[in-house]
């Protein structure tokens, strides 16, 4: 697994555009509260986004984690 630096910043305009696109009716206070929560964790989210999964095998899909559990802590 490789990583790359990621630095992003949520803004009111971005959240507002997403809300509009999704047809959500939110007050400005609600939007700003959401923005504050997003901004607080953006560094951690960028850290998660930095991970780059290989396109070629071995594949890691969302379901891989379930398969690992069902098989007792290893892949078949």
């Amino acid at each position, binding site marked *: 697994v490789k990583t790359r630096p990621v630095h992003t910043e949520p803004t009111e305009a971005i*959240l507002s555009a997403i809300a509009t696109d999704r047809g959500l009716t939110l007050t400005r206070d609600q*939007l700003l509260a*959401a923005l504050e*929560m997003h901004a607080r964790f953006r560094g951690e989210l960028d850290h*998660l986004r930095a991970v780059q999964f290989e396109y070629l095998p071995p594949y890691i899909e969302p379901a891989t984690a379930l398969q*690992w559990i*069902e098989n*007792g802590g290893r892949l078949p």
Partner: protein
Amino acid sequence: VTELADCTVAELLESYGSKTASPVEALESCLGRIDRLDGSVGAVLTLLVDRSRRQAAESERRWARGDARQLEGIPYGLKDIIGTAGIRTTGGSMLYAENVPTESAALAQRLEDAGGVLVAKLNTFEFAGGSNATTSNPWDLDRWACGSSSGSAAAVAAHELPLTIGTDSGGSIIGPAVFCGVVGLKPTFGLVPRSGIMPLSWTLDHAGTLTRSTLDAALSLRVIAGHDTRDPTSSRHPVEDYVGKSDKTIEGVRLGIPTDWFFDLCDPEVDSAVRAAIAQLVDNGATVVDIDLPSTKLVDLHAMELTIFYAELSANHEITFDRLSEYGPEFQRLLVRSQFTSAADYLQALRSRHLVQLDFQRAFERVDALVVPGQICTAPLQDHLVARIGSDEYPLLDVLSRLTAVMNIVGVPTLSLPIGFDSLNLPIGMTVAARPFDERTCFRVGRAFEELTDFHLATPQLVEADISRAHEKGAAVSLDGIVLNPIRTDTKDSIW
């Protein structure tokens, strides 16, 4: 032990079997404790007085006939996100204040079929995700019981019930169990079906037990575990006899102590108590190995947890998002914030889970179990919800699930048990994690520690005082047939 309400599940079963106590007497003792203490503790949302009395009477007849089932006559409670046929199931929310399911959750039905006596539906953070602080910690009523299974942990700690069921998506069984000084079991993901339980996060949701001993957790797990076709993630792994095969000795067990993440941010008193507990296990035959978990530096566990949680929470509540104002204030903030989770981030988080699992896989090639602090601190004050680490304070939201959510992400079984007290006499807990479906190893470590110590027998002063009062006044209980306590989603302080 001076009241039947103070007995563990195993002690009650033994007493019923030897005819020194009956299910009806045990139930009345629990109802009396609830009647006297729950006004202060606030664990109970719905109290089923008449129904539980009918069930206890039937259990008494079964014991007399010699056809008692596995949990015959054991009083228990369910977190109120667990569906119960004919009994209101509110999710701790005004949104579902009138919700009465026609079918019980799979685990609720299994407890009933095993002869358990359902006494109460218990307080929960709203949909297991808000942070309402209406349940108090029995060790100090000014302190937080944690959550979201706050009522489930507090009811066991206050000796109102010997067994309760909670759910855990990022630490909602383990957290309250640690803060309230009881035993919490979050089984392997998929071992206990979630069918009929209000979902918070499909990927992270687990159901498990809160008890006053490890043996009780093992006795209860064998009843609630097992495949259910209504839960698409329910495992087909066979249910074991966790009790019969459970060994109480620690000799030869290899314990792993993580050198990354778990001890990086931890109150010194908690750190010392956990290391002392490990030393005690080593003195009695366990071996220890340092374990590195490099993925905890590579991927951000907190972002992984929250991204999965927000994405799935948003999807679950899509149908009622237009009724946003009917949610409690904390859940409203959570729900609005969750709307802005991208599909790309969600998939990145889901795929990253396996990187952490690979670390655990490598660890379990060298050890039988990992032992870590149950929480980074002890219970905070209800009107000042911060994590105190030494002299520093951290916002709870930033750190509360730090040690627990990783176990939900990986899906391994975890058992937390009381291992000491801090200088304020607040409980400290330690968590034991093992390979998927190796709950037996968790139970073995827990039972061995309980053989060596008596922290799990410690009783809050609140209960000690009640035992004295009950003796003075007698234990007459005059409760209505059904008690519907109000749903409260307000907070004394906020974490979101």
